[in-house]
Protein backbone atom coordinates (compact mmCIF):
# COMPACT_ATOMS: atom_id res chain seq x y z
CA UNK A 1 0.00 0.00 0.00
CA UNK A 2 1.32 3.46 -0.83
CA UNK A 3 1.69 6.12 1.83
CA UNK A 4 1.13 9.75 0.86
CA UNK A 5 4.67 10.49 1.95
CA UNK A 6 6.09 7.87 -0.40
CA UNK A 7 3.99 9.14 -3.30
CA UNK A 8 5.08 12.73 -2.63
CA UNK A 9 8.70 11.62 -2.43
CA UNK A 10 8.36 9.83 -5.74
CA UNK A 11 7.05 12.98 -7.48
CA UNK A 12 9.94 14.99 -6.03
CA UNK A 13 12.43 12.41 -7.14
CA UNK A 14 10.95 11.82 -10.59
CA UNK A 15 12.82 14.65 -12.37
CA UNK A 16 16.02 13.63 -10.62
CA UNK A 17 15.48 10.04 -11.62
CA UNK A 18 14.81 10.95 -15.22
CA UNK A 19 17.97 13.02 -15.32
CA UNK A 20 19.98 10.46 -13.38
CA UNK A 21 22.73 8.35 -14.82
CA UNK A 22 21.80 5.49 -17.09
CA UNK A 23 22.97 1.92 -16.84
CA UNK A 24 26.15 2.82 -18.68
CA UNK A 25 27.35 4.68 -15.64
CA UNK A 26 26.36 2.05 -13.11
CA UNK A 27 29.08 2.09 -10.53
CA UNK A 28 30.59 -0.20 -7.99
CA UNK A 29 29.34 -1.25 -4.62
CA UNK A 30 29.06 1.15 -1.77
CA UNK A 31 32.16 0.76 0.32
CA UNK A 32 31.56 -0.92 3.61
CA UNK A 33 32.52 1.27 6.54
CA UNK A 34 35.67 -0.04 8.16
CA UNK A 35 34.68 -2.34 10.97
CA UNK A 36 36.33 -2.23 14.36
CA UNK A 37 39.85 -3.50 14.76
CA UNK A 38 40.00 -6.80 12.91
CA UNK A 39 40.54 -9.79 15.09
CA UNK A 40 41.88 -12.05 12.39
CA UNK A 41 42.42 -12.04 8.69
CA UNK A 42 42.06 -15.19 6.63
CA UNK A 43 45.08 -16.98 5.34
CA UNK A 44 45.17 -17.31 1.59
CA UNK A 45 45.26 -21.03 1.20
CA UNK A 46 44.17 -22.90 -1.86
CA UNK A 47 41.74 -25.75 -1.54
CA UNK A 48 41.31 -28.57 -3.97
CA UNK A 49 38.19 -29.08 -6.01
CA UNK A 50 36.03 -31.71 -4.35
CA UNK A 51 33.33 -34.24 -5.06
CA UNK A 52 30.27 -32.51 -6.45
CA UNK A 53 27.41 -32.65 -3.98
CA UNK A 54 24.15 -34.14 -5.17
CA UNK A 55 22.37 -30.82 -4.72
CA UNK A 56 25.37 -28.70 -5.50
CA UNK A 57 23.86 -25.65 -7.13
CA UNK A 58 22.90 -22.77 -4.86
CA UNK A 59 20.88 -20.15 -6.69
CA UNK A 60 19.90 -16.77 -5.28
CA UNK A 61 16.46 -17.03 -3.78
CA UNK A 62 13.87 -14.96 -5.69
CA UNK A 63 12.99 -13.51 -2.30
CA UNK A 64 16.55 -12.39 -1.87
CA UNK A 65 16.50 -10.73 -5.30
CA UNK A 66 13.18 -9.07 -4.39
CA UNK A 67 14.76 -7.88 -1.15
CA UNK A 68 17.74 -6.46 -3.09
CA UNK A 69 15.34 -4.61 -5.39
CA UNK A 70 13.41 -3.22 -2.47
CA UNK A 71 16.59 -2.01 -0.76
CA UNK A 72 17.30 0.26 -3.75
CA UNK A 73 14.40 2.38 -2.55
CA UNK A 74 12.28 1.92 -5.64
CA UNK A 75 8.53 1.83 -5.24
CA UNK A 76 6.35 -1.13 -6.08
CA UNK A 77 4.93 -1.21 -9.61
CA UNK A 78 1.43 -2.60 -10.09
CA UNK A 79 0.57 -4.95 -12.93
CA UNK A 80 3.93 -6.72 -13.25
CA UNK A 81 3.19 -10.08 -11.65
CA UNK A 82 1.94 -13.23 -13.36
CA UNK A 83 -1.85 -13.19 -12.84
CA UNK A 84 -3.06 -15.99 -10.59
CA UNK A 85 -5.86 -16.82 -13.03
CA UNK A 86 -3.26 -18.28 -15.40
CA UNK A 87 -2.64 -21.19 -13.03
CA UNK A 88 -5.31 -23.15 -14.90
CA UNK A 89 -3.18 -23.03 -18.07
CA UNK A 90 -0.40 -25.07 -16.50
CA UNK A 91 -1.35 -28.67 -17.15
CA UNK A 92 2.00 -30.48 -17.46
CA UNK A 93 4.51 -31.08 -14.70
CA UNK A 94 6.98 -29.06 -16.75
CA UNK A 95 4.80 -25.92 -16.85
CA UNK A 96 3.60 -26.41 -13.26
CA UNK A 97 7.15 -26.60 -11.92
CA UNK A 98 8.37 -23.57 -13.85
CA UNK A 99 5.40 -21.51 -12.76
CA UNK A 100 5.65 -22.62 -9.17
CA UNK A 101 8.97 -20.85 -9.35
CA UNK A 102 7.42 -17.85 -11.12
CA UNK A 103 4.66 -17.45 -8.56
CA UNK A 104 7.22 -17.97 -5.79
CA UNK A 105 9.18 -15.00 -7.09
CA UNK A 106 5.97 -12.96 -7.35
CA UNK A 107 5.15 -13.91 -3.78
CA UNK A 108 8.59 -12.76 -2.70
CA UNK A 109 8.03 -9.37 -4.26
CA UNK A 110 4.60 -9.05 -2.68
CA UNK A 111 6.01 -9.83 0.75
CA UNK A 112 9.06 -7.57 0.67
CA UNK A 113 6.96 -4.67 -0.57
CA UNK A 114 4.24 -5.36 2.03
CA UNK A 115 1.54 -5.87 -0.60
CA UNK A 116 -0.37 -8.01 1.86
CA UNK A 117 -3.67 -7.70 -0.02
CA UNK A 118 -2.22 -10.11 -2.61
CA UNK A 119 -0.36 -12.40 -0.21
CA UNK A 120 -3.20 -14.86 0.43
CA UNK A 121 -4.02 -15.22 -3.27
CA UNK A 122 -0.42 -15.91 -4.27
CA UNK A 123 0.17 -18.27 -1.37
CA UNK A 124 -2.97 -20.15 -2.43
CA UNK A 125 -1.77 -20.34 -6.03
CA UNK A 126 1.66 -21.59 -4.97
CA UNK A 127 0.01 -24.18 -2.74
CA UNK A 128 -2.20 -25.35 -5.61
CA UNK A 129 0.74 -25.95 -7.93
CA UNK A 130 2.76 -27.62 -5.19
CA UNK A 131 -0.10 -30.03 -4.51
CA UNK A 132 -0.47 -30.79 -8.22
CA UNK A 133 3.24 -31.62 -8.31
CA UNK A 134 2.78 -33.99 -5.38
CA UNK A 135 4.57 -31.82 -2.85
CA UNK A 136 1.86 -31.91 -0.24
CA UNK A 137 4.02 -31.82 2.89
CA UNK A 138 5.62 -28.45 2.19
CA UNK A 139 2.36 -26.57 1.74
CA UNK A 140 -0.14 -28.10 4.16
CA UNK A 141 -3.60 -26.62 4.62
CA UNK A 142 -2.44 -24.99 7.84
CA UNK A 143 -0.03 -22.77 5.94
CA UNK A 144 -2.84 -20.54 4.73
CA UNK A 145 -4.08 -20.24 8.31
CA UNK A 146 -0.61 -19.16 9.38
CA UNK A 147 -0.42 -16.65 6.54
CA UNK A 148 -3.76 -15.15 7.55
CA UNK A 149 -2.68 -14.96 11.16
CA UNK A 150 0.51 -13.15 10.16
CA UNK A 151 -0.77 -10.70 7.57
CA UNK A 152 1.07 -7.46 8.14
CA UNK A 153 4.05 -9.22 9.73
CA UNK A 154 6.58 -9.12 6.91
CA UNK A 155 9.26 -11.10 8.76
CA UNK A 156 6.95 -13.96 9.62
CA UNK A 157 5.51 -14.14 6.11
CA UNK A 158 8.99 -14.28 4.57
CA UNK A 159 9.87 -17.06 7.03
CA UNK A 160 6.74 -19.01 6.15
CA UNK A 161 7.37 -18.70 2.41
CA UNK A 162 11.10 -19.40 2.54
CA UNK A 163 10.72 -22.45 4.77
CA UNK A 164 7.86 -23.83 2.65
CA UNK A 165 9.95 -23.62 -0.52
CA UNK A 166 12.91 -25.18 1.28
CA UNK A 167 10.68 -28.05 2.45
CA UNK A 168 9.39 -28.51 -1.10
CA UNK A 169 12.96 -28.56 -2.43
CA UNK A 170 13.94 -31.09 0.23
CA UNK A 171 11.01 -33.36 -0.66
CA UNK A 172 11.85 -33.25 -4.36
CA UNK A 173 15.56 -33.92 -3.88
CA UNK A 174 15.01 -36.68 -1.34
CA UNK A 175 12.62 -38.33 -3.80
CA UNK A 176 15.06 -37.97 -6.69
CA UNK A 177 12.95 -35.42 -8.53
CA UNK A 178 15.93 -33.12 -9.01
CA UNK A 179 14.76 -32.01 -12.44
CA UNK A 180 11.51 -30.67 -10.98
CA UNK A 181 13.52 -28.83 -8.33
CA UNK A 182 15.68 -27.38 -11.11
CA UNK A 183 12.65 -26.10 -13.02
CA UNK A 184 11.25 -24.38 -9.93
CA UNK A 185 14.59 -22.67 -9.36
CA UNK A 186 14.80 -21.69 -13.03
CA UNK A 187 11.27 -20.28 -13.10
CA UNK A 188 11.92 -18.29 -9.94
CA UNK A 189 15.20 -16.85 -11.20
CA UNK A 190 13.78 -15.89 -14.60
CA UNK A 191 10.78 -14.16 -13.01
CA UNK A 192 13.00 -12.34 -10.49
CA UNK A 193 15.25 -11.09 -13.30
CA UNK A 194 12.22 -10.05 -15.36
CA UNK A 195 10.74 -8.14 -12.39
CA UNK A 196 14.10 -6.47 -11.76
CA UNK A 197 14.14 -5.10 -15.31
CA UNK A 198 10.51 -3.94 -14.96
CA UNK A 199 11.27 -2.13 -11.71
CA UNK A 200 14.34 -0.40 -13.09
CA UNK A 201 12.41 2.49 -14.59
CA UNK A 202 13.65 1.54 -18.08
CA UNK A 203 17.21 1.25 -16.89
CA UNK A 204 17.30 4.63 -15.17
CA UNK A 205 17.77 3.18 -11.71
CA UNK A 206 21.52 2.70 -11.40
CA UNK A 207 21.32 0.37 -8.41
CA UNK A 208 18.88 -2.01 -10.10
CA UNK A 209 20.99 -1.89 -13.28
CA UNK A 210 23.90 -3.11 -11.20
CA UNK A 211 21.81 -5.88 -9.62
CA UNK A 212 20.72 -6.99 -13.09
CA UNK A 213 24.30 -7.01 -14.34
CA UNK A 214 25.41 -9.07 -11.34
CA UNK A 215 23.03 -11.84 -12.38
CA UNK A 216 25.70 -12.80 -14.93
CA UNK A 217 27.21 -14.87 -12.12
CA UNK A 218 24.06 -16.68 -11.03
CA UNK A 219 23.05 -17.29 -14.67
CA UNK A 220 26.25 -19.31 -15.08
CA UNK A 221 25.23 -21.48 -12.12
CA UNK A 222 21.67 -21.85 -13.44
CA UNK A 223 22.93 -22.96 -16.86
CA UNK A 224 25.18 -25.57 -15.24
CA UNK A 225 22.17 -26.85 -13.30
CA UNK A 226 19.84 -27.05 -16.33
CA UNK A 227 22.56 -28.60 -18.51
CA UNK A 228 22.13 -31.78 -16.46
CA UNK A 229 18.58 -32.15 -17.79
CA UNK A 230 18.70 -30.61 -21.28
CA UNK A 231 18.24 -33.98 -22.96
CA UNK A 232 15.30 -35.04 -20.77
CA UNK A 233 12.73 -33.49 -23.08
CA UNK A 234 12.31 -30.84 -25.75
CA UNK A 235 11.14 -28.31 -23.14
CA UNK A 236 14.33 -28.64 -21.10
CA UNK A 237 16.36 -28.36 -24.29
CA UNK A 238 14.59 -25.18 -25.34
CA UNK A 239 15.03 -23.66 -21.89
CA UNK A 240 18.72 -24.50 -21.91
CA UNK A 241 19.16 -22.93 -25.35
CA UNK A 242 17.34 -19.77 -24.24
CA UNK A 243 19.52 -19.43 -21.17
CA UNK A 244 22.65 -19.91 -23.26
CA UNK A 245 21.44 -17.19 -25.60
CA UNK A 246 20.80 -14.91 -22.62
CA UNK A 247 24.31 -15.68 -21.42
CA UNK A 248 25.72 -14.35 -24.70
CA UNK A 249 24.22 -10.96 -23.83
CA UNK A 250 25.28 -11.12 -20.21
CA UNK A 251 28.85 -11.73 -21.38
CA UNK A 252 28.86 -8.07 -22.46
CA UNK A 253 28.45 -7.03 -18.81
CA UNK A 254 31.87 -6.25 -17.41
CA UNK A 255 32.45 -7.10 -13.77
CA UNK A 256 35.82 -6.15 -12.35
CA UNK A 257 37.19 -6.74 -8.90
CA UNK A 258 39.39 -4.85 -6.47
CA UNK A 259 41.01 -7.05 -3.88
CA UNK A 260 40.58 -6.26 -0.22
CA UNK A 261 41.16 -7.83 3.17
CA UNK A 262 39.04 -10.47 4.82
CA UNK A 263 38.15 -9.43 8.33
CA UNK A 264 36.65 -11.67 10.99
CA UNK A 265 35.05 -10.53 14.20
CA UNK A 266 32.26 -11.77 16.43
CA UNK A 267 31.24 -14.78 14.36
CA UNK A 268 31.12 -12.76 11.15
CA UNK A 269 33.58 -12.63 8.28
CA UNK A 270 33.56 -9.60 6.01
CA UNK A 271 35.03 -10.10 2.56
CA UNK A 272 36.09 -6.61 1.53
CA UNK A 273 37.00 -7.47 -2.04
CA UNK A 274 34.83 -5.15 -4.16
CA UNK A 275 33.10 -5.62 -7.49
CA UNK A 276 32.30 -3.00 -10.08
CA UNK A 277 29.60 -3.66 -12.65
CA UNK A 278 29.59 -1.95 -16.04
CA UNK A 279 26.45 -2.49 -18.04
CA UNK A 280 25.53 -0.22 -20.91
CA UNK A 281 21.99 0.91 -21.61
CA UNK A 282 22.03 -1.15 -24.81
CA UNK A 283 23.08 -4.33 -23.02
CA UNK A 284 20.50 -3.71 -20.31
CA UNK A 285 17.78 -3.33 -22.94
CA UNK A 286 18.92 -6.50 -24.68
CA UNK A 287 18.80 -8.43 -21.40
CA UNK A 288 15.36 -7.00 -20.61
CA UNK A 289 14.02 -7.98 -24.05
CA UNK A 290 15.42 -11.50 -23.92
CA UNK A 291 14.22 -12.25 -20.40
CA UNK A 292 10.79 -10.85 -21.29
CA UNK A 293 10.59 -13.26 -24.24
CA UNK A 294 11.68 -16.23 -22.13
CA UNK A 295 9.28 -15.27 -19.37
CA UNK A 296 6.34 -14.87 -21.71
CA UNK A 297 6.89 -18.36 -23.05
CA UNK A 298 6.94 -19.72 -19.49
CA UNK A 299 3.75 -18.05 -18.30
CA UNK A 300 1.57 -18.15 -21.42
Amino acid at each position, binding site marked *: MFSMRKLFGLFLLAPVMLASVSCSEAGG*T*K*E*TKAEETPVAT*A*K*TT*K*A*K*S*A*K*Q*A*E*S*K*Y*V*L*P*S*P*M*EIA*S*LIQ*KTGINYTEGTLNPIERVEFYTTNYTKALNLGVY*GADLGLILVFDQTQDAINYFTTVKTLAEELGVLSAFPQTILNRVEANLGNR*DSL*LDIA*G*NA*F*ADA*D*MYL*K*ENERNQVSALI*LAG*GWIEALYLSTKFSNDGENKDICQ*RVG*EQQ*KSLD*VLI*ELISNFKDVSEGYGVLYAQLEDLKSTFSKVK*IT*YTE*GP*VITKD*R*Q*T*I*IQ*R*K*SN*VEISAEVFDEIADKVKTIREQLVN
Partner: protein
Amino acid sequence: MKRLALVILSFVAFGAIAQCEMYAKKCNPLLEPYKSDGQFHRALLTEGETAEFIATFHAGNTYRIIGCTGPYSDTLIYRLLDANYNIIFSNDDYDYPNYWDFKFNATDRYYIQAELMDGAGSGCAVILIGFSDRK
Protein backbone atom coordinates in the same frame (compact mmCIF):
# COMPACT_ATOMS: atom_id res chain seq x y z
CA MET B 1 22.21 -62.99 -3.19
CA LYS B 2 22.58 -59.99 -5.47
CA ARG B 3 18.93 -59.11 -4.92
CA LEU B 4 19.37 -59.29 -1.14
CA ALA B 5 22.40 -57.00 -1.34
CA LEU B 6 20.40 -54.49 -3.37
CA VAL B 7 17.56 -54.54 -0.85
CA ILE B 8 19.99 -53.98 2.01
CA LEU B 9 21.72 -51.13 0.17
CA SER B 10 18.35 -49.51 -0.54
CA PHE B 11 17.46 -49.58 3.16
CA VAL B 12 20.83 -48.08 4.06
CA ALA B 13 20.47 -45.34 1.45
CA PHE B 14 16.92 -44.60 2.54
CA GLY B 15 18.07 -44.35 6.13
CA ALA B 16 20.84 -41.94 5.21
CA ILE B 17 18.47 -39.75 3.20
CA ALA B 18 15.93 -39.68 6.04
CA GLN B 19 18.78 -38.56 8.29
CA CYS B 20 19.42 -35.59 6.00
CA GLU B 21 15.88 -34.38 6.46
CA MET B 22 16.14 -34.82 10.22
CA TYR B 23 19.37 -32.81 10.39
CA ALA B 24 17.90 -30.03 8.25
CA LYS B 25 14.91 -29.69 10.55
CA LYS B 26 17.14 -29.79 13.61
CA CYS B 27 19.36 -26.98 12.35
CA ASN B 28 16.72 -24.81 10.67
CA PRO B 29 16.09 -22.69 13.82
CA LEU B 30 19.71 -21.51 13.63
CA LEU B 31 18.78 -19.46 10.55
CA GLU B 32 16.93 -16.92 12.68
CA PRO B 33 16.97 -13.91 12.02
CA TYR B 34 18.10 -14.65 8.46
CA LYS B 35 15.63 -15.74 5.79
CA SER B 36 15.90 -19.19 4.21
CA ASP B 37 17.12 -19.27 0.61
CA GLY B 38 14.26 -21.70 -0.06
CA GLN B 39 16.58 -24.55 -1.05
CA PHE B 40 17.90 -27.76 0.44
CA HIS B 41 21.59 -28.54 0.08
CA ARG B 42 22.97 -31.88 1.17
CA ALA B 43 25.54 -34.52 0.40
CA LEU B 44 25.95 -38.12 1.49
CA LEU B 45 29.58 -38.54 2.46
CA THR B 46 31.85 -41.41 3.26
CA GLU B 47 34.96 -40.96 5.35
CA GLY B 48 37.53 -38.79 3.62
CA GLU B 49 35.11 -37.38 1.03
CA THR B 50 34.56 -33.65 0.57
CA ALA B 51 31.36 -32.33 -0.99
CA GLU B 52 31.24 -29.06 -2.90
CA PHE B 53 28.38 -26.63 -3.47
CA ILE B 54 28.47 -23.78 -5.99
CA ALA B 55 26.87 -20.51 -4.89
CA THR B 56 26.49 -16.88 -5.88
CA PHE B 57 26.52 -14.30 -3.11
CA HIS B 58 25.61 -10.66 -3.67
CA ALA B 59 27.60 -7.53 -2.88
CA GLY B 60 26.25 -5.60 0.08
CA ASN B 61 24.38 -8.59 1.47
CA THR B 62 24.98 -10.65 4.59
CA TYR B 63 24.41 -14.39 4.74
CA ARG B 64 24.41 -17.15 7.32
CA ILE B 65 25.84 -20.52 6.37
CA ILE B 66 24.93 -23.42 8.62
CA GLY B 67 26.78 -26.71 8.43
CA CYS B 68 24.81 -29.52 9.95
CA THR B 69 25.21 -33.22 10.49
CA GLY B 70 24.28 -35.55 13.28
CA PRO B 71 23.93 -36.67 15.86
CA TYR B 72 26.69 -34.27 16.98
CA SER B 73 26.78 -31.12 14.88
CA ASP B 74 30.38 -30.39 15.67
CA THR B 75 31.63 -33.26 13.53
CA LEU B 76 31.20 -31.34 10.26
CA ILE B 77 33.96 -29.25 8.75
CA TYR B 78 32.80 -26.64 6.25
CA ARG B 79 34.68 -24.00 4.33
CA LEU B 80 33.90 -21.01 2.16
CA LEU B 81 36.11 -20.52 -0.88
CA ASP B 82 36.26 -17.76 -3.46
CA ALA B 83 36.00 -18.29 -7.22
CA ASN B 84 39.72 -19.12 -7.36
CA TYR B 85 39.50 -21.71 -4.59
CA ASN B 86 41.17 -19.51 -2.01
CA ILE B 87 39.90 -20.42 1.45
CA ILE B 88 38.06 -17.48 2.98
CA PHE B 89 36.84 -19.31 6.05
CA SER B 90 37.12 -22.74 7.62
CA ASN B 91 35.19 -23.62 10.75
CA ASP B 92 37.99 -25.81 12.02
CA ASP B 93 39.91 -22.60 12.72
CA TYR B 94 37.22 -21.56 15.21
CA ASP B 95 36.48 -24.77 17.12
CA TYR B 96 33.80 -26.02 14.72
CA PRO B 97 30.89 -23.59 15.10
CA ASN B 98 27.81 -24.90 13.33
CA TYR B 99 27.07 -21.55 11.72
CA TRP B 100 28.88 -18.44 10.59
CA ASP B 101 27.87 -15.12 9.05
CA PHE B 102 29.42 -13.58 5.97
CA LYS B 103 29.18 -10.14 4.46
CA PHE B 104 30.24 -9.71 0.84
CA ASN B 105 31.31 -6.54 -0.96
CA ALA B 106 31.61 -8.32 -4.29
CA THR B 107 29.05 -10.39 -6.20
CA ASP B 108 30.75 -13.50 -7.44
CA ARG B 109 30.76 -17.27 -7.52
CA TYR B 110 31.81 -18.94 -4.29
CA TYR B 111 32.22 -22.54 -3.22
CA ILE B 112 31.18 -24.21 0.00
CA GLN B 113 32.95 -27.43 0.87
CA ALA B 114 31.88 -29.83 3.57
CA GLU B 115 33.45 -32.96 4.99
CA LEU B 116 33.01 -35.15 8.01
CA MET B 117 35.75 -35.20 10.61
CA ASP B 118 38.18 -38.06 10.79
CA GLY B 119 36.59 -40.90 12.67
CA ALA B 120 33.03 -39.68 12.11
CA GLY B 121 32.45 -42.41 9.55
CA SER B 122 29.86 -41.74 6.87
CA GLY B 123 26.77 -39.62 6.99
CA CYS B 124 24.80 -36.73 5.64
CA ALA B 125 26.13 -33.18 5.45
CA VAL B 126 23.45 -30.52 5.23
CA ILE B 127 24.18 -26.91 4.33
CA LEU B 128 21.53 -24.30 5.07
CA ILE B 129 21.85 -20.76 3.76
CA GLY B 130 20.00 -17.66 4.86
CA PHE B 131 20.14 -14.09 3.61
CA SER B 132 19.67 -10.94 5.58
CA ASP B 133 16.58 -8.98 4.66
CA ARG B 134 17.64 -6.00 6.74
CA LYS B 135 19.42 -2.91 5.34
